[in-house]
């Protein structure tokens, strides 16, 4: 790709984010904290340190996307001020940092805070203050509850749905399975596990021969893996965050345990999981995807992948392209940009939330073909479809149909 062409792509992408300057005169400009004629302040917390620090690249990517938008003239003529803090994947630190964002930095909204524990810790505070907790980076099923928490919204497909899809796949392909489960002991892990049990149905729950748990503060999951192997399980459902996912895959290979391996989507990254675990150890692992693997040759010509590559080359030149966090961050940041674009000059927290619940068939970049963002005042689950894939060589091979679960709880 020539430099000239790349520039055009980026300019084009920037243009996407700019609406006509001739806003109708009737449009009243209205602002809450964090918004003005010249600026929109967005707050974010991420684990840049600690056991889940592999996710930190998501925050860095969102930051870079905002820089790209600013370089192209900003959003509706306003510069985006993206303030991001480290919470170390620790709930108490998340509470402190979010309070700082709201009370000292006075941000308009808190965007994409990562992790079920941290989001659980800050949810009540943000809803009490009526500050949007938008597009959280966790798929727990509880983020889509507008009646009780009207200021909180998820983004990715929820864990319950995903867990059920794996279970159904096991039942249809391996009816006599003996299943072992490794689970992070918190709400994120339990959510996946509950969905998985729902998918199996009560009659099949005894197929789970071993459930091993670990704490996110643990150094390794080695002993759990040995326990799972000794249980005689021949199917493995791996509910782990990146660091532990890589450990589990590696350990399984070390102890020569070769089950049919299902890995949860939150660890579907070549860069932070499969490569560190060893590509040869990862062959055949199945995972539910909702985004394209941007490094896969089959998508090389799709415009969103081309745009992503241009963005990465210019704004994150030293980054590991195989790390899925860059892909996730790019996509979710564009959903936020679309929401703010729709909000126009009415940048109140209430209106931002209203527009977040008014995304209709929005094709956020890098979503798989046929998967779109849809929300409504009663549907706070933006993405609700996935497709199964298996690790083949150095990429994911998709198979089967796009599976959907359009719930409106």
């Amino acid at each position, binding site marked *: 790709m020539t430099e000239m062409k790349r520039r055009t792509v980026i300019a084009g992408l920037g243009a996407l984010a700019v609406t006509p300057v001739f806003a109708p005169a009737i449009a009243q400009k209205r602002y809450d904290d964090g918004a003005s004629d010249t600026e929109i302040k967005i707050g974010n917390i991420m684990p840049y340190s600690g056991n889940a620090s592999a996710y930190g690249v998501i925050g860095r990517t969102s930051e870079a996307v905002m820089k790209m938008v600013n370089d192209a003239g900003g959003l509706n003529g306003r510069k985006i001020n993206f303030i991001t803090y480290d919470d170390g994947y620790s709930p108490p630190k998340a509470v402190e940092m979010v309070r700082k964002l709201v*009370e000292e930095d006075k941000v308009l909204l808190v965007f994409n805070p990562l992790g079920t524990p941290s989001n659980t810790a800050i949810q009540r505070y943000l809803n009490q203050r009526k500050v949007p907790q938008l597009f959280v980076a966790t798929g727990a099923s509880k983020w889509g509850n507008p009646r009780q928490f009207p200021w909180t919204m998820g983004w990715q497909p929820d864990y319950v749905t995903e867990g059920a899809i794996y279970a159904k796949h096991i039942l249809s392909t391996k009816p006599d399975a003996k299943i072992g489960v490794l689970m992070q002991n918190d709400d994120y892990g339990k959510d996946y596990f509950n969905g998985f049990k729902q998918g199996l149905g009560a009659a099949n729950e005894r197929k789970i021969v071993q459930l091993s748990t670990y704490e996110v503060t643990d150094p390794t999951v080695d002993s759990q893996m040995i326990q799972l192997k000794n249980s005689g399980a021949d199917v493995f459902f791996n509910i782990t965050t990146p660091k532990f996912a890589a450990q589990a895959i590696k350990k399984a290979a070390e102890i020569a345990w070769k089950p049919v391996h299902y890995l949860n989507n939150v660890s579907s990254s070549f860069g932070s999981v499969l490569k560190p675990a060893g590509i040869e150890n990862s062959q055949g692992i199945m995972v539910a995807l909702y985004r394209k693997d941007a490094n896969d040759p089959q998508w090389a010509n799709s415009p969103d992948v081309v745009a992503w590559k241009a963005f990465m080359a210019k704004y994150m030149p030293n980054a590991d392209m195989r790390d899925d966090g860059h892909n996730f961050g790019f996509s979710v940041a564009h959903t936020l940009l679309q929401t703010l674009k729709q909000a126009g000059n009415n940048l109140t927290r209430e209106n931002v939330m209203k527009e977040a619940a008014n995304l209709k068939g929005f094709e956020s970049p890098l979503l798989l073909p046929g998967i779109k963002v849809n929300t409504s005042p009663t549907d706070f689950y933006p993405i609700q479809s996935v497709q199964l894939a298996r690790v083949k060589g150095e990429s994911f091979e998709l198979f089967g149909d796009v599976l959907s679960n359009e719930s409106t709880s």
Partner: protein
Amino acid sequence: MTAVTSTAPAAAEGSRNLTRTLLLGLLVLAAALPFLVGKSGFISNFTFLQLSLMIVYAIAVLGLNLLTGFNGQISLGHGAFFAVGAYTAAILIEQFGVNYWLTLPAAAVLCFVIGYLFGLPALRLEGHYLALATFGLAIAVPQMLKYKHLEPLTNGVMGINLLKPDAPFGLPLSGDQWMYLVVLVVAVGMFWMARNLLNSRPGRAMVAIRDHTLAAGTMGIDTARYKATVFGISALYVGIAGALHAIIFEFVSPDSFRFELSIAILVGAVVGGVASLPGAVIGGIFVQFIEKYADAMTKKLTQAIHLPLELQPWTLYGITLIVLIYVMPGGIAGGLAALWARLRRPSPGG
């Protein structure tokens, strides 16, 4: 105030009055702060929260000072009592709708009893054995909070969210400003009680046990009973700090009280000055601000001089600590006292 610092020179009556006046003025100013800024936002609620946390840590450090500085026992497990106090408050408020004021005595009593009982057998242990036993406590308590059968009470690993109380009587204060006043008043009371305790007969007995256990025993002091009681009182202080922490921070989880907290309290005590009441305040400042500041400073430093290696947040903290211990073995309070003494009586030729 400095009646029982180990390095206290016999200060003249005049200077003691001056100190007292200064202290009183400082307290009045601290108490007036929320009323002065009101809801102008000139000092953000977040800042008030940080000040409250600082005072809370000062109470916790004071509790450890009573044990270590004035009674000569080492504890690496005070984070556990902090957790018990915090969870007592959180569970009482959230599950049983108890008024937040009442959770403080509840936490105090519970922590005193646990501390006393833990103290009895543990006190047959000397020095480093006791340190290890208490360390075990610090490791065990967060795990117990995650225990399956306690989950209906503790909500397990996800913790408990609370709501901060509003200011009563229609005072023109935010919740954070009100709680800052509450914490300040409680802290002043706790410091006053500590001072009176140390100036009493039992207080002198405590120090005698620290200085020479055997001699204290021959003078008729029941050393085991004393040691266990001091352990209980120390746990009580830290428990009240924990309860206040839960109320002002509006959140507790097992993760909030990992063993690092025990270490932080110990470091605060040693850095402030382990046998000094003002040292506890300095310790509180250190725990709340220096640790976080060191984290940010490390980042800035790494970026500024383009270090080829990733400096971990704790690097600078560790270096600061080593330097402090070498320069001021008596803690910052001890160091300042020594400096003050030297300024008042310039040594010949110095």
